[in-house]
């Protein structure tokens, strides 16, 4: 069963999708009948509570065009987790997707607030205090930041985290330049609204976000990290990059139980067409199932 709804966050509406372990009821509808399947929100939420689950997962997606490419693989991941008994929540950051809010107002701070709200919501509807986070790209960095402050976060899976925000900013600028070289415009220039620093593939990125990213470095943080961590690379060779190993060392020095590994699969957040990164999905599901058994 899947429940989609909006929850209030900072005066905005956060679009969330909850994937519950219970199998979906078969649809009796035939092609073209086009009937809605009315479901009462209260009933749905109640059905999601306390049905033998003692933990849940929350997925922190990437943003910008990486989010678009990663969307379906993360839906498939959420369904796979629910299929093996782990309720899983996905959401759109405020200012992105189907959530309300201004795209230009998205910052690392707002993304962390949204993830925090999503985690609290997931705990409520799953009737558990134990949460596993799965973050992809910038979402992984956000997951690591939130895990510093929330002891209820039992484990985090960091999928190709950005680690250094300055690199992400550099990629934005390079992409903008390449677009300018190939087409006739960098998509920026005089049309940018006040406070918008970069036109990143048609997404406005604010001065504030650029500043936060420039200061962001997961390797240089020092707060204690109690969660167990999987740093996961997704690439053509089953060998984690040196950068990911370095992050693993940095997190270990903060008290975390860290595993660094790689799966051979397509970097789905950069894919142009539909992809099914099964090795990635299998690796994350395996990790979370293992974590569940150990508890």
């Amino acid at each position: 069963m899947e429940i989609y709804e909006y929850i209030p966050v900072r005066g905005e509406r956060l679009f969330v999708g909850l994937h519950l372990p219970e199998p979906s009821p078969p649809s009796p509808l035939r092609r073209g009948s086009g009937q809605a399947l009315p479901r009462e929100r209260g009933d749905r939420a109640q059905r999601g509570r306390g049905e033998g689950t003692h933990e849940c997962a929350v997925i922190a997606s990437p943003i910008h065009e990486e989010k678009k490419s990663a969307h379906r693989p993360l839906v498939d991941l959420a369904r796979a987790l629910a299929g093996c008994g782990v309720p899983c929540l996905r959401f759109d950051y405020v200012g992105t997707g189907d959530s309300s809010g201004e795209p230009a107002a998205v910052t690392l701070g707002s993304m962390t607030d949204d993830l925090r709200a999503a985690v609290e919501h997931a705990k409520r509807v799953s009737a558990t205090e134990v949460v596993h986070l799965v973050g992809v790209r910038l979402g992984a960095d956000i997951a690591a930041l939130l895990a510093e402050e929330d002891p209820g976060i039992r484990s985090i899976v960091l999928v190709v985290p950005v680690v250094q925000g300055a690199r992400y900013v550099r990629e934005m600028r390079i992409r903008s330049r390449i677009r300018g070289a190939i087409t006739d415009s960098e998509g920026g220039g005089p049309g940018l609204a006040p406070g918008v620093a970069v036109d990143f593939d048609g997404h406005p990125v604010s001065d504030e976000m650029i500043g936060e990213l420039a200061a962001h470095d997961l390797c240089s943080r020092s707060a204690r990290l109690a969660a167990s961590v999987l740093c996961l690379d997704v690439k053509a060779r089953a060998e984690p990059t040196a950068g990911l190993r370095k992050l693993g060392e940095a997190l270990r020095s903060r008290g975390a139980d860290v595993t660094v590994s790689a799966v051979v699969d397509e970097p789905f957040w950069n894919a142009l067409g539909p992809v099914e990164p099964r090795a990635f999905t299998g690796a994350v599901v395996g990790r979370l199932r293992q974590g569940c058994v150990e508890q």
Partner: protein
Amino acid sequence: MCGAVTAEERYVEFGFGGLTMRGVLHMPASRGPAPVIMLSGWGGTRYGPNGILVEAARVLAEDGRAVARFDFRGRGDSDGAVSEHDLKCHIEDALAMADWVRDHVDERPPVLLGICSGGEVAVGALFSGLDVDSVCLWSAPVFAAEPTAARRSRKRLGYLLDYGRKALRPETWRKLLSGRVRFDIIRRVLGGAGVHEKSEGEPEELGRSAVFTGRCGGALLVYGTADPVAQEAAIAYESLYGGAGCGSSLHVVEGANHGFYGLHWKTEVIRVTREWLAGRPP
């Protein structure tokens, strides 16, 4: 124009062929012009590239239009396997979306707004006999085009020539050399023209004598000048709609690529579409 929500937005779903199709409905407070059904690209979601469908839906809802954005089966949040679908399936999905909108939102013929392959789906719905108010095709390739070697090479050649010409400019080199050249990024910037292999039983490619059976009040065609599918497709669709007597209006976005990956390109596409729809008879 961007993230402002002025109409009610709610999650909606319906069952179809044993699958659940999921989407969002933008519902204005009072009944306005004909509703809009948005159709995403081949590998995309109901958000569209750089969120263009969400932004366009919110803008059109400001004008009093109900707007439905569903994910095709195997895409976004809808049920279905990722790899098992083709243009024919997506046309069936669009017809089911139209049924749902007619039964639950507004009985009037809808506007079909499709981006990239979603534009092909809109055309396919007309060939299937769906009556529509009008269609808006953004970067729509030729309907059911065979992925011939000539087309593929034209696409690649067009980009390479353009890239090569500009690469000779000193300022281009300065720009590129100021950062690391990332070919994965180049591929992303260049690509995404919605080319996909055809499977068994897919519709035939749009021919000169093709006539659709659904009623259509007009067509808006929007293409970027840096989109390699633009020229051939615009000619084909102007011929198709002209032949059907409903007329078409072509708007070219200077410099834009296939996915309108720039804020001012995106803004122009939405503005032109809004104005074109506003100028249509109620």
